[in-house]
C-alpha cells in the first residue's frame, strides 16, 4: 500500500476512534481500517503487553505520530500488502496476525498505573525496509554532495550507513575521499591511473583500451585473469582494466555476500550498482545492498537486533537504549515484539522470559544445557499411564489425559488421578519439600538439589511442549473463526474472542514456564516464594482450564460457551500479570538469585 493511501485510512481510523468509546470496535465496516491500525503499530510499536501504557485513546496519538513520520521520511513506505482490500484468502491470515499483534487492553491499564519504567520506543523493520530507508537518505544527501546518487550509495555503504560520519569526512576532505573509496571524480571520463593499491603492473596488465562502463563483445580477447583467448563479452571501468565477462561474474558472485564495495580487479575504482547489474545480466546489486545492511545490523547490535525466532527476518530497531539500564535495575526485561508477533527480550535476545530476568534466564538455560539431553527428551515426550503402563505421547495442549487403552483419567503433570484437579485447589506445581529431618549428609544434599532441579526442569519442559502445541492450536483458530462465521452467521469481529483466548493462553504458558526457572533459584523457605508458588498454582489451573476450553471443536458449543471463554481468558490475563509482578518482587528483594 502506498504511503498516501495509508494516510487516508489513518484519517478514517482517527474518526472511528473518536466515535467509539468501548475498547472493542464492533462496526462491521471497520474491519480493514482496523488492520491499518496495525500498520501504524508496525512503525511505532510501544512495548506490548507488559509495559505499554497505550490505551485505545493512545492509538489516536499513535496515528497522528505516524502521519508526521510519513511526511518527514518520504522514502519510507509501509509494506502492508497483506491487507489487500476484499481479498478473502489473505484476509484470514492477515487478521490472525493482526489480532495477535494487538496489545491486551486490560493489562495496558495496569501498566499505566505503574509507570515505573519508560516506554521502549522501537520499530520493526526488514532489511528491505532499511534499504528503502537508505535510499531515502541518499536522496536527502544528493543536493549536498552534488554527485550522482549511485556514488552516494557507495559512500554510505563504505561508512556503514553512518550519515553523520560520512558528512564529517566529506567536509574535511571531499576529493581524497572520493579517490580513496574508488569513485571517479571526473565522471565518465577515462583516467590514466587511479591505483592506490600496491600493485605491480606487468606488461600484461596494461591493456588500457579506454572502454567505459559497458559490456562489449570482442571477437578476440585475451583475459589476464583466466589466461584464455576467446571471443567473449568483456567489461571495463574508466580505468581500462578489461576482463572477460565470465571472470567478472565469478568475481562479483563471490563478493555479493560480503556486503563490501566491489572494486575493479585491477585498481581501486568501485563498481556501481548499475555496473553490477549490467555485468551479471540481472539485478544482483540489491543482494549486495541487503548483505551490506545485514552486516550493518550485526555491527550495530546495541540498537538493532534480529528476531531470534527461526526463519523470521525482522529487525527491531530500538531508538533510545538509555532506558535499558533502568529496566535491568528494576528487574524488568525489555521485551519487544516483531511484526510477526514474536516476542523476545532485547537485552539477551532470548524469547520472552518473564517473570525471570535475563540473569536467571541465562543461568537456567546454561544449566539445562549441561544436564543430560537424553533425559530431557524422555521427560518431555513420553510417559507411562499410571494404571496400565502404556507409553503415552502427549499431542494436545491440555493436561487432562485419558488413557486410550484403559480409559484412566489422570493429570499429565503429577500423574495422579484427574478427579481432584477439576474441582479442588490445583496442587501440581508445588514442589513437595520432603525435608523430614533437617540434617542430611552432603551427598544427600546434592541428590536433593538434583531432584529439585529435575522436578523444576520437568515442569519447565512440560509447559514448553504444551506451549508449542498451543501454538499449533493457534494456527487452526483462524479456521475455527471462519467456521463460526459460516455456520453460525456471526461477524468476524465477534469471533475474535477465540484469537484473544489463544494469545492469552500462549502468554500465560510462557510466563508459567519461566516461573519455574525463578522458583528454582528462589529461597524456598521465604514467605514470598511461597506466595509465588501459590500464584504459580493458580495460573497453572487457569491455563489448564482455558486450554481445555480451546480444545472444543464444535462451533455451536463454542458460541454457547462464549462467556466462559471471556471469563477464563480474563482470569488467565490477571493471573499472568500477578505472577510476573510477584516474580519481579522476588528478584528485586534478592530472594531469587542465580549465583
Amino acid at each position, binding site marked *: 500500500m502506498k504511503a498516501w493511501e495509508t494516510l487516508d485510512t489513518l484519517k478514517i481510523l482517527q474518526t472511528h476512534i473518536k466515535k467509539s468509546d468501548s475498547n472493542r470496535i464492533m462496526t462491521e465496516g471497520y474491519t480493514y481500517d482496523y488492520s491499518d491500525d496495525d500498520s501504524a503499530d508496525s512503525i511505532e510499536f510501544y512495548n506490548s503487553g507488559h509495559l505499554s501504557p497505550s490505551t485505545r485513546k493512545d492509538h489516536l496519538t499513535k496515528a497522528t505520530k505516524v502521519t508526521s513520520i510519513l511526511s518527514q521520511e518520504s522514502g519510507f513506505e509501509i509494506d502492508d500488502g497483506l491487507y489487500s482490500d476484499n481479498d478473502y484468502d489473505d484476509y484470514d491470515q492477515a487478521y490472525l496476525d493482526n489480532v495477535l499483534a494487538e496489545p491486551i487492553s486490560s493489562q495496558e491499564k495496569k501498566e499505566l498505573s505503574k509507570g515505573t519504567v519508560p516506554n521502549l520506543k522501537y520499530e520493526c523493520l526488514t532489511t528491505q525496509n532499511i534499504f528503502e530507508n537508505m535510499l531515502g537518505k541518499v536522496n536527502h544527501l544528493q543536493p549536498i554532495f552534488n554527485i550522482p546518487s549511485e556514488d552516494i550509495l557507495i559512500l554510505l555503504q563504505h561508512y556503514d550507513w553512518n550519515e553523520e560520519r560520512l558528512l564529517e569526512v566529506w567536509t574535511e576532505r571531499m576529493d581524497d575521499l572520493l579517490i580513496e573509496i574508488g569513485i571517479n571524480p571526473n565522471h565518465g571520463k577515462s583516467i590514466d591511473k587511479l591505483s592506490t593499491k600496491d*600493485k*605491480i603492473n606487468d606488461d600484461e596488465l596494461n591493456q588500457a583500451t579506454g572502454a567505459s562502463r559497458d559490456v562489449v563483445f570482442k571477437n578476440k580477447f585475451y583475459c589476464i585473469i*583466466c*589466461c*584464455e583467448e576467446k571471443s567473449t563479452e568483456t567489461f571495463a571501468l574508466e580505468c581500462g582494466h578489461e576482463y572477460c565477462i565470465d*571472470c567478472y561474474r*565469478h568475481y562479483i558472485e563471490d563478493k555479493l555476500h560480503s556486503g563490501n564495495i566491489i572494486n575493479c580487479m585491477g585498481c581501486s575504482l568501485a563498481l556501481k550498482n548499475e555496473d553490477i547489474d549490467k555485468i551479471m545480466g540481472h539485478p544482483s546489486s540489491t543482494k549486495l545492498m541487503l548483505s551490506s545492511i545485514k552486516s550493518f545490523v550485526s555491527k550495530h547490535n546495541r540498537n538493532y537486533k534480529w528476531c531470534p525466532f527461526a526463519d523470521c527476518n525482522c529487525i527491531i530497531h530500538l531508538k533510545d537504549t538509555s532506558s535499558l539500564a533502568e529496566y535491568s535495575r528494576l528487574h524488568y526485561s525489555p521485551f519487544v515484539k516483531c511484526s510477526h508477533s514474536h516476542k523476545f527480550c532485547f537485552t539477551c535476545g532470548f524469547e520472552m522470559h518473564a517473570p525471570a530476568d535475563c540473569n536467571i534466564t541465562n543461568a537456567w538455560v546454561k544449566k539445562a544445557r549441561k544436564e543430560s539431553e537424553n533425559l530431557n527428551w524422555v521427560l518431555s515426550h513420553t510417559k507411562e499411564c499410571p494404571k496400565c503402563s502404556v507409553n503415552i505421547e502427549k499431542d494436545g495442549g491440555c493436561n487432562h489425559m485419558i488413557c486410550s487403552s484403559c480409559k484412566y483419567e489422570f493429570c499429565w503433570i503429577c500423574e495422579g488421578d484427574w478427579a481432584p484437579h477439576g474441582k479442588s485447589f490445583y496442587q501440581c506445581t508445588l514442589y513437595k519439600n520432603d525435608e523430614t529431618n533437617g540434617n542430611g549428609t552432603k551427598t544427600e544434599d546434592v541428590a536433593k538439589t538434583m531432584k529439585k532441579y529435575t522436578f523444576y526442569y520437568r515442569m519447565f519442559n512440560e509447559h514448553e511442549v504444551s506451549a508449542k502445541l498451543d501454538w499449533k492450536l493457534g494456527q487452526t483458530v483462524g479456521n475455527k473463526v471462519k467456521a463460526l462465521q459460516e455456520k453460525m452467521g456471526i461477524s468476524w469481529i465477534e469471533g475474535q474472542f477465540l484469537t484473544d483466548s489463544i494469545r492469552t493462553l500462549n502468554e500465560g504458558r510462557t510466563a508459567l514456564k519461566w516461573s519455574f526457572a525463578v522458583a528454582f533459584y528462589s529461597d524456598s523457605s521465604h514467605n514470598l516464594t511461597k506466595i509465588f508458588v501459590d500464584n504459580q498454582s493458580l495460573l497453572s489451573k487457569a491455563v489448564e482450564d482455558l486450554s481445555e476450553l480451546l480444545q472444543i471443536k464444535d462451533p455451536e458449543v463454542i458460541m454457547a460457551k462464549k462467556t466462559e471463554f471471556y471469563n477464563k481468558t480474563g482470569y488467565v490475563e490477571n493471573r499472568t500479570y500477578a505472577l510476573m509482578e510477584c516474580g519481579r518482587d522476588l528478584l528485586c528483594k534478592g530472594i531469587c538469585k542465580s549465583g
Partner: protein
Amino acid sequence: MASLPKRIIKETERLVSDPVPGITAEPHDDNLRYFEVTIEGPAGSPYENGIFQLELYLPDDYPMEAPKVRFLTKIYHPNIDRLGRICLDVLKTNWSPALQIRTVLLSIQALLASPNPNDPLANDVAEDWIKNEEGAKNKAREWTQLYATKK
C-alpha cells in the same frame, strides 16, 4: 585431479622462464597447485643473507581466492607468527584476481624489508619491535643466522 586452469599453467611457466630475482617457486610434482618457495632476505634488512623457505598453495577457487602462503623457516618478524602465518593485506581483504603468485611473493619480500609493528600478528615480537627496535633487529639477525642460513 581436475585439469589445471590455463591461468595456473601460464603463471607457472613464467615463474620458471622469467624468475623474479631473489625468489624461487617450484610446483610440487604430485600437486601442481602446491609450490615450494624460497625468498632471499632483502639487502639492508635484518634478514639479509638469509634464505627463507615458504609453502604456497593455490586453492580451488584461485584466482578468485588468494593463494595460501606460509613461512616454513623460523623468522623473527612482527607480522609473521610462530606458525609462519603472514599478516599481509593482499593475502586477505585486498586480494584481487588481477594479482599473481609473483606479485604476492614480491609483497612478502617487501614485508621483510619493512616490517609493520603497528599491525602485528605476533604481538610479543611487535611489542619488542616498538619498545626496542635495535634489540629486536639484532634478534631477527640472530634468528636469520640460526635458522635461515645454509650450512
